[in-house]
């Protein structure tokens, strides 16, 4: 469903806890364009969760301002502000005494929606997040797996169609296989919904995979770099960022590009017989890994049905 995403601006946003040395978030300025995912990442003590909670005023600002579509969060009524922002946390925090339907309908009920409209919306959202709209709505959180709970948490945050979503390590407590699947589904959803999302993680790989832009925060809540994943991997501004993204950043950068992005050499008469093959939507990183494993110098790129599209050489990938 279409939605109007909001532009989010941190303007010198600062949080200082009384009695503690230094700031938790220090004059943070960045703009998240409407409809984009901004990932806040950094070491613990970097203030990423604090920065996130400043937005829905779970933590009050000490200085500076945060604006949603040009309006300061301080000008909004507190509860109205929170109801207009989707909020997802790592431990999900579903209400154990409410069914899935009751949980997802929380904000719509607070907003005074009609019962029928809430029921329909719950069905719609369950379908959207890959749960069964008939069976699952009547279940209690204790009857769900960790992955299912986080899906319900996501549906609950989306219930009133917020223009802005805050997600605090949403997949952090989920095992790696399910996490990867949830990340993929979240990105597919985001492709449809185009929300403005602030996403906190401590996992660089997740940041690279999920983020349209990444804000790297260093100790004391200072912004080290705010850029696209590609630029952060290829041009880290300093040693801190380079260290943080890791020595394998060149490999990580390869994972951002698809074989389909490269110019392919024609497969030729023999159709690349005998070469290892890989689908066009595979990443350059996977392609390189395949070449290394097979001790080959070139591979055949194929489309979804296995028909050859062309040949890629090792040097095309590395250049």
């Amino acid at each position, binding site marked *: 469903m279409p939605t109007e995403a909001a532009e989010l601006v941190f303007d010198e946003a600062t949080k200082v806890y009384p009695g503690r040395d230094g700031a938790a978030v220090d004059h943070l300025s960045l703009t998240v364009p409407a409809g984009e995912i901004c990932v806040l990442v950094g070491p613990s003590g970097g203030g990423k969760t604090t920065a996130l909670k400043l937005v829905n005023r*779970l933590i009050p600002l000490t200085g500076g301002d945060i604006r949603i579509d040009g309006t300061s969060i301080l000008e909004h009524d*507190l*509860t109205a502000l929170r109801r207009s922002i989707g909020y997802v*946390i*790592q431990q999900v*925090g*579903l*209400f154990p*005494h409410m069914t899935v339907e009751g949980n997802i309908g929380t904000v719509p009920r607070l907003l005074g929606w009609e019962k029928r409209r809430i029921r329909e919306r719950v069905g719609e959202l369950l379908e959207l997040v890959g749960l069964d709209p008939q069976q699952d709505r009547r279940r209690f959180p204790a009857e769900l797996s960790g992955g299912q709970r986080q899906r319900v948490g996501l549906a609950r945050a989306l219930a009133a169609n917020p223009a802005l979503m805050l997600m605090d390590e949403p997949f952090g407590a989920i095992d790696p296989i399910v996490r990867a699947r949830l990340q993929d589904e979240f990105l597919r959803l985001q492709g449809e919904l185009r929300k403005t999302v602030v996403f906190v993680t401590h996992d660089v790989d997740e940041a690279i995979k999920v983020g349209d832009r990444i804000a790297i925060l260093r100790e004391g809540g200072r912004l080290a770099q705010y850029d696209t994943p590609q630029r952060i991997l290829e041009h880290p501004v300093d040693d801190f960022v380079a260290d943080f993204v890791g020595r394998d950043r060149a490999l990580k950068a390869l994972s951002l590009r698809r074989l389909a992005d490269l110019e392919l050499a024609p497969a030729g008469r023999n159709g690349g017989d005998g070469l290892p093959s890989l689908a066009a939507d595979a990443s350059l990183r996977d392609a390189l890994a395949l070449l290394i494993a097979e001790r080959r110098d070139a591979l055949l790129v194929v489309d979804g049905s296995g028909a050859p599209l062309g040949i890629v050489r090792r040097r095309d990938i590395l250049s």
Partner: protein
Amino acid sequence: MTGWLVAKGGGPVIPDFGQPSACLKRNGWFCTDWLTKHWGDTLQPALVQHIQLTLIAVGIGFAISFLLALVGFRWRLFDGPLGGFTDLLYAIPSIALFQLLVPLTGVTVTTVEIALVSYTLFILYRTMIAGLRAVPDEVLESARGMGLTRLQTFFRVELPLAAPAILAGLRIATVATISIATVAAFLIDDGLGAPIFAAIETPDLFKTELLATGGLAILLALVADALLAALQRALTPWNRLR
């Protein structure tokens, strides 16, 4: 051996002094003729009075505990003193408490109820506070993050989640009150304690009456416990899954 039946005849608990049954003559443990004859004038009224004593005590005790728990939950500062106060009341032996109250409220039902209520506070207050405090942090955080007000969080999240603990406390308090209320007969002629005391005070210990009333008190406690357990299950279906 059964001469006292004739000699002391006329009192409400003294049965059939004209033609006592063989069972009564030998003071048997379970004389059905006495039970059927005196169900209406002795046992049933005592049972009804006992239920009344209990309901009033638990009802008032629940209301007072709830108010105290609201204060102790909202302002942690008061939790210690309030908990200590209910603790202190609970520590006083019931007969001593009756005696302490007589100069203030006389030999009345009020005195008994005050004592009974005092005993419920400790259990109810503690279980309410424990239940409210046990709500997980992440649940409260998501409630706050979604824009529930403080009151909405209390009534829609904290209170329902504390319900299993509160109802468990209610069960214990009710069963305890049913038991302590038998001692009320020490002061007034109400409840199942009265026939029990009467049976004990007869020179030869009136066994049928003692067994019947004691049995009724036990039965009442079991039934009350089962009813409240059923209520608990019905009100908190989600709790069985955890």
